């Protein structure tokens, strides 16, 4: 007869009659990863790459920083509102902790 130990992943399995499920409450507006390329004279990225498409940034219309939760898992984001070559406006940010880029409506 196999006995289960507490470090066994099978631990916590409910009795046959019981039902336990775990689900994630889904957030809206979750940031999506992008890549950036080049560097403009002002130091900001020159283009964003979404999938296989690279689009040039023609202007940076706004920028701001969000620093939060330094006591837990620090959040440090440098947001940029950029205008792309086709005229669309995007909000992207640089995660300065993970050194990654994301797009996210603000």
């Amino acid at each position: 007869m196999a006995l289960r130990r507490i470090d066994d992943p099978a631990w916590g399995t409910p009795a046959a009659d019981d039902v336990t499920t775990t689900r994630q409450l889904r957030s809206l507006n979750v940031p999506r990863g992008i890549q950036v390329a080049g560097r403009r004279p002002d130091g900001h990225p020159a283009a964003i790459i979404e999938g296989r498409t690279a689009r040039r940034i023609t202007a940076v219309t706004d920028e701001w920083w969000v620093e939060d939760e330094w006591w837990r898992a620090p959040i440090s984001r440098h947001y940029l509102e950029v205008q792309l070559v086709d005229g669309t406006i995007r909000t992207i940010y640089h995660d300065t902790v993970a050194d990654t880029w994301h797009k996210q409506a603000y």
Partner: protein
Amino acid sequence: MARATAPTFPGMIASDAFPGRRPVIACVLVPHFPLRVALLGQAELDGLPLVLGPLPGGRPVVADASPEAVARGIRTGMTLREAMAMVPEVVVADPNPARERDVAEAILGSLSELSPLVEADRPGRWYVDLTGSARLLGSPPRAAERLLAAIPASLRPRAGVAPGRFAAWVAARKSPPGRSRVVFPDDVASFLAPEPSTALPVPADMADLMIRLGLKTLGQLADLAPGAVTARLGTAGGRAWLLATGRSDAADTTVRPRPEILTITERVDLPAPSTGREMFFLGVDEGITRAFGRPDMRDRHVRQVSISAAIEDGRSWDRLLTLREPTGYERMGEVLRQRLGDLALPGPAEQVTLSLTGIITAPARQEILPGVRRRRPRPLVEAVQQLKQRYGTSPVYRIAEVEPWSRIPERRHALVSYEP
């Protein structure tokens, strides 16, 4: 590996030790259970002077102390400030009732694999009926080893086996961690004789009275005539005499397994740790929707709800709510909000767990008069039912505000299940 300190002699088998149909009761003990659970996963703290702090909102006193802390002079009931002044290196562990419940359930499950008759008596104490299980589990010492092997060694479990619950508990209490002690029927009276009479399961005032009467050990009580004991101490005293003499009554040899109760548990991981009511109740609502959305929960009502929250830093918060009347899906969220009006989480919640028990068929109720019935969006109801039929779950969600003021955009709104 556990080693039983049982008398052994050539050819001894279980039926020799516990002849005939004599009951064989095992007691598995984890002293300082909440403290031991707090240590799980923190092996580096084992051996340090540890104390258990109060539950959130409780008085800052020592709720329990490890043997290492007791050896340094710390006592239960002492204020935490006093304990820290006395032993500066003392480690204060926060109680985690939800984790304790999970660990206790897991232990119960493991012991139940060895015997169908397992009783969770109180936190850290389980009784197992081993009567007639010699062929399956071996002799009592071997069976005790197997019981101990079912529990993580870091909890420092110990076991006792005897013909009755009381003797088994005393045997377990006298065993060192990881070991077991078997008391055979012929040895029970002599084994119990030197034990203090305060060990008896009697009311505190009766224990005091026995001390005042000079009955300091079970042997002194057993030497008295049973009639005299009953005349002075009543029927409870008579039972105490019975136990002190190594005999057992029906209550001492009965292990009451927990009745099978269907429990539906839904755990909801929150998008981000939060102390806010909105986020907490969003998780509760999601759990309610998911639980009642199960096909077998259709038209069911619930009598009892257990809600717990996993708090950052390994703490937890929990509340057991017995509802005034069986409540179904439509009113559950509102009822829980009312009952938890004074909700004050001790820290940011990461996960909300909702357990529904006492599940019954919806009781008949006076219907609302035609014409005043709440109008439901009929096409939407049918559309959702069709989608559930096709995909198993409803893929229709509604957008709920969580922390609309948050500077982190993904914390502002969440999708929650929608049941029209």
